[in-house]
């Protein structure tokens, strides 16, 4: 996991722990739950982007596969919550492999294109297979998660569940980065050819990261379905895929802490964009463009650099004052 991460992680866990003690409002709790759900997806995407150097334009589809597996299997086929959840993970993983194995063999950004196509196909499937998915009018009546009579309904319990899982997955992702796999991935990001020369199976590692990111999205989808208890296709469309990508860019690709920051900011943003109504699209476009142009490494890095610069200024001023005195 790396020593440098343990302190901020402890602070994060403490903050999350005391949050529900002070904030009892369901509104804020549900926003925090959505941030948690989005964080899980964005962590996976961040690994993919920052370590495999690829982007996915269809991650909302894997989010949707998780959600629809949980929803459809529990509502229509009487699966237990846990088995539906695991089926979602399995299906997303297999689908991800099917998309990634042929495309990641190719040089370049074919994965972006393939995931764009894949995402749209899955969206059409959600819409058109009325008998199973409920089509455009959606699927309702998804049960709450229930462990031996202990029901995770909305509010504090679900907050703890989502963030508990998010933190575990976060630690897992940090461990991946600091393991042999992570080193191989960083080598690939540096140079495909050099990594291959060192004996790293480049495309296979990329496929694994992509599958892992799909599984993360699927987990988030299941959590979403059991929280909202209603799912419909627009939640899993192209625009959501773009928003997820935007979360990675805002936070800074390749940094898991950036992923958390990006997920937080972009999830809260719509709450402040209400007065703009439909023009939120314009605001999203402007924000994304400004960040790409002026802070291409993301807000986390940008803010750190800014902070250092300010500190440096203050320090140099102090030395000037000190010399003057």
């Amino acid at each position, binding site marked *: 996991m790396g020593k440098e991460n343990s302190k901020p992680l402890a602070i994060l866990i403490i903050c999350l722990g005391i949050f529900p003690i002070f904030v009892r409002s369901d509104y804020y709790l549900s926003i925090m739950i959505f941030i948690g759900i989005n964080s899980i997806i964005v962590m996976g995407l961040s690994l993919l982007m920052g370590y495999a150097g690829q982007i996915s334009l269809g991650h909302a589809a894997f989010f949707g596969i998780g959600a629809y597996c949980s929803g459809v299997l529990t509502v229509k086929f009487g699966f237990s919550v846990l088995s539906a959840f695991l089926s979602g993970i399995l299906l997303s993983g297999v689908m991800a492999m099917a998309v990634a194995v042929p495309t990641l063999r190719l040089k370049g950004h074919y994965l972006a294109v393939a995931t764009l196509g894949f995402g749209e196909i899955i969206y059409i499937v959600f819409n058109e297979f009325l008998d199973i998915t409920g089509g455009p009018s959606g699927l309702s009546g998804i049960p709450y998660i229930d462990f031996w009579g202990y029901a995770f309904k909305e509010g504090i319990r679900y907050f703890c569940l989502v963030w508990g899982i998010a933190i575990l997955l976060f630690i897992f992702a940090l461990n991946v980065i600091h393991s042999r796999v992570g080193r191989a991935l960083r080598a690939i990001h540096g140079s495909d050819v050099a990594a291959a020369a060192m004996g790293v199976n480049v495309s296979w590692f990329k496929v694994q990261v992509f599958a892992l990111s799909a599984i993360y999205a699927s987990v988030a989808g299941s959590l979403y379905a059991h929280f909202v208890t209603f799912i419909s296709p627009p939640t899993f469309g192209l625009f959501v895929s773009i928003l997820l990508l935007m979360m990675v860019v805002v936070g800074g690709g390749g940094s898991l802490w950036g992923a958390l920051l990006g997920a937080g900011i972009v999830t809260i943003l719509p709450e402040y964009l209400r007065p703009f109504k439909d*023009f939120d699209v314009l605001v999203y476009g402007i924000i994304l463009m400004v960040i790409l142009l002026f802070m291409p490494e993301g807000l986390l890095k940008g803010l750190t650099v800014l902070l250092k610069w300010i500190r440096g200024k203050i320090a140099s001023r102090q030395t000037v004052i000190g010399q003057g005195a």
Partner: protein
Amino acid sequence: MTRFSEILQFLFSGLTVGSIYGMVGLGFTIIYNATAIINLAQGEFVMLGGLIMFSLTAGAKLPLYVGFPLTILSVTTVGVLFERFAIHPLRNASLLTLIIVTLAASILFRGIAMFIWGKDPYALPPFISGSPVIIGGAVIIPQAFWVLGTAVTIVILMSFFFSKTIVGKAMSACSFNPMAASLMGINVRKMILLSFALSAALGAVAGVVITPISLMEYDRGPVLAVKGFCAAVLGGLGIGYGAVIAGFMIGILESFTTAFIHSGFKDAVALFILLFILCFKPSGIFGSEEVGKIKKF
């Protein structure tokens, strides 16, 4: 209506839609060839073309022969500004960042279009009034000939441009090796700017000719971009005529899917073709694997 005329009818409507996909695909190809960027805002150029043409001819009452060039000019300006203010400053960034920039631009253009024109679809009158032509029992509206004719003309002009003119040859050189091209005295940056201008102009033309048939609204871009991209990949990424022929093929297949299978799956056809071709022949129908290997993308 006989079976034959029915098939003919769907064939013609497929060709009409397909020529738009082909033109969008060609737009992708031009930028890709000069920069290796997949310009995800390509569909927005088409959308802007249709909507600006609407404002100029139906709104400002300009005649067709004034409105059309003015539309092309304005969308080209948008393309040039986009390159200057978004792509050019990031010329040292990774290809990944640049692709995301085009994505951001597409959202931005869509937002601006919604701001100006709202969410309603707009229609244009056909370029020439006249009764539909009947061929073999199939009814074809005159505007369809305009669309097809434009697509074919553009392919001919483009292949002339890239194979016969010095500027076109310089642009092709940039696509193979920008370093070598600049050593030959080609101004690579100017070529990149030109590629964005050309591709925006092409998008505008496609938007103008299709709007009388299929209307135009602010969020048409992504669908067109995806289909156009499918055409570009199917034809072999980087091969202009390939993109247009593949566009026709996708249009016809879509039209037949609507007719004989289910209209809901119409949009999935192009995407299935895309995934299929990426699995089995990523160099496309007209591309060769050897050429694919030396490309930077």
